[in-house]
């Protein structure tokens, strides 16, 4: 087989030779939606709607009292399992709590579970992945092997261990979800870093005499972050779902104000008699995941110079 390094090199070398303008064209002009009437502008309408939704959810998380008509803990035993109606737009649950208010008040913890477990996962996974990718060599092997090992250890086992070691509570659910997500983030980050460290601007910076640490901080990390952050937007939703899953397996915490996942898990037994108890929290999760992802996609397109101008 006549595959020489010279040939391998040629491609990138030649790509570099294309005038910069053309390179932009090469990646910019992608297939046109044949015969579609639904065009570019609608992406922004969607993103706008998503932004409004997220803003609304943020409002719910910060000042639920402004939005919710009832207290989330108020158990009106005279009005249990009421179908959606004007006073209770999302109905009431088996305690007689107003489902709408529950969801509004549950926003904070839900977003918190999502955000903080993603944050922890991204920080740990990102750090390990960067280390593995930037330093390389043996450290890379060790870290990635360990990530593989972590991947094979079942998530509920981790959750249980953490709950057992640190006591029950939201914090531990978050930690458990975060730790299970670490290998994924680490992998992506490592791949990114390995790609970015070969970029021209890293070479240029090194040629200028910049210190490796400052290259890592100023060039490599900021440029590697985008896919990780996009992955994190996905993670926001899946963490809430993972929390719901733990709650389903009986590892949740009984909080005064349940998060969406817990609402969903606790209400599932009522699906046939009172569909509204777990359907609306489910829709809340969907709304959140949907909007965050739409925004995430849009934002990646905006940040990623390669995708500039793509819907």
């Amino acid at each position, binding site marked *: 087989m006549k595959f020489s390094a010279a040939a391998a090199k040629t491609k990138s070398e030649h790509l570099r030779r294309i005038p910069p303008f053309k390179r932009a064209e090469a990646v910019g002009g992608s297939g046109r939606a044949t015969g579609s009437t639904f065009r570019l502008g609608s992406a922004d309408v969607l993103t706008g709607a998503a932004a409004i939704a997220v803003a609304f959810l943020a409002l719910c998380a910060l000042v639920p009292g402004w939005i919710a008509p009832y207290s989330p803990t108020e158990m009106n*035993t005279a009005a249990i399992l009421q179908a959606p109606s004007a006073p209770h737009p999302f109905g009431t649950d088996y305690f007689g709590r107003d489902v709408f208010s529950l969801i509004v008040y549950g926003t904070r913890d839900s977003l918190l579970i999502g955000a903080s477990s993603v944050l922890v996962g991204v920080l740990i996974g990102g750090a390990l992945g960067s280390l593995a990718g930037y330093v390389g060599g043996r450290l890379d092997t060790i870290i990635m092997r360990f990530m593989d090992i972590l991947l094979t250890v079942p998530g509920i086992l981790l959750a249980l261990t953490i709950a057992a070691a640190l006591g029950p509570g939201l914090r531990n659910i978050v930690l458990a979800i975060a730790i299970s997500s670490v290998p994924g983030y680490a992998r992506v980050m490592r791949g990114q870093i390995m790609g970015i460290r070969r970029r021209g601007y890293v070479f240029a910076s090194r040629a200028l005499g910049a210190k490796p640490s400052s290259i890592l901080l100023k060039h490599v990390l900021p440029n590697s972050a985008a896919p990780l952050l996009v992955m994190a937007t996905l993670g926001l939703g899946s963490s809430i779902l993972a929390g719901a899953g733990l709650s389903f397996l009986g590892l949740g915490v*009984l909080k005064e104000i349940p998060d969406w996942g817990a609402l969903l898990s606790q209400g599932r037994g009522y699906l046939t008699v009172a569909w509204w108890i777990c359907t609306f929290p489910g829709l809340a999760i969907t709304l959140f995941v949907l909007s965050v992802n739409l925004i995430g996609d849009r934002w990646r397109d905006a940040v990623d110079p390669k995708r500039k101008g793509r819907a």
Partner: protein
Amino acid sequence: GSSSGASTAQAAAGSSGAAASAPVQGGELTYALATSPDTLDPRRSGLAVSVRVFGALYDTLLVRKADGSLGPSLATEWEASGDGLSYTLKLKPGVKFQDGTPFNAEAVKYNFDSIIDPQTKAANALALLRPYKSSEVVDEYTIKLNLETPSQAFLGNLSQGMLSLVSPTAAQKDGENFGKNPVGTGPFKFVGWSENAEIKLARNPDYVWGSEEAKNTGAPYLDTLTFKIVPEEATRIGGVQSGQVLAAETVPPQNVVALQNDPNAQLLQTNTIGFPYTLFFNLEHEPWNELKARQAVQYAVDLDSIVKTLYLGTYERASSSITPGILGYDESLEGKIKPDPAKANALLDELGWIKGADGIRAKDGKKLTLHYVDGSPNREKRNDIAAMIREQLKAIGIETEVEITQDIATVVYQNWDYDLYGNSQVNSDPNGLTSFYRSAGEGRRTLSGLSDPQVDAWLDEGAVEPDEAKRAELYKKVQQYISDQALILPVYVFPYTVAASRSVQGLTFDPFGYPIFNDAYLNK
């Protein structure tokens, strides 16, 4: 309160019409269980769900009849010695284990001796058999059981499924694996168990020694009895509604109504006996060692409303430490304690717990908190009870920390780390109260942690008192003491519910709430 007062299995809904038609031979009954048995070796099992299967696989020496009295099964006659230290039982001749091993005194001796042998790692059976010491084989069909101390509960316990009799040959041969290859004398023999899926039993054609408990004392009508293990409520009920299984146990209250209106399904329900779901205060923890604090909780919690709200009227409220149907049950306790937040507040005020700005009481800078431990998953909506109690206690200034944990063994039974913890037990004799309220030995303790010589004395007396009426009196005293001291919050009596297809007929339950499959048949 319990209207009937009796422990008769009350089949609700459709089963009434069934009695008329003649039983049909054959067919397979699929019966969905909510959890999986741990083992089919009765000696080693610790789960009530296993007993549902034991009833089909095994027989016990005695049975508890619908009226609460003891009846013959494998033992035809029994007689206690004057000192109450031994019982002589006459056994039914001609009984064979499903592997052909004859059932006789030797077999009984083997069973009971192996239970007290630590090698067997016996579980609940060991507790039930206590204070058994040894057996003497008087002749082939007569056995004398010797006890360490007299026990009035002993005989009754012989009717419990955990003391079913296993084939000595098979038990010795299979050793540890016996639980996966059970052999008994029951109406069904074991065919196979595929874990987490199903346990398959087949009709034992030789079975002619059925107890009077079922109408059919011969071999069962069903050819096959298959237990499916279906933990998820919705799936279990869905299974009956879609016809994939013919019966499913533990119907959630919210589905009861729907099932009652379902033309294709029927709902069978019976109350269980023993100790109702009861919340125990931990008397070793401040401030719950003080009567007034406990009383305050007692007055603050509106259990009637909780039970009604959560169980939608399908569960009965418990009022005492034992359920109706148990000897000595004190009906006078029913409705005795009415919720009274004002009184509750007053009691706490008296103790010096003062409401702070956040509405939570505090004393000496310490908040008034109650550590409520409950198991997981949300069995019988017990977590929801916790949630409601938390709300109600908040109203009188108590902050409830609810801990839901999978690891009850550690949190509760090892660390005793709870202020309030709930438990229930299926039992037939009030003597079971001992394990909750009698001061335990050195270094050990009970759920309540009570240590009162008076109670100990009543319980000890009750254990040996041969006169039923006097025994009942003793246990009434205990119940009143428990109630007066506000040691517990009795919550509900658990009804065993089964959703079944209309084709299922003759399915009944024993007083413990365990299904009796011998009369069951399928209408084509």
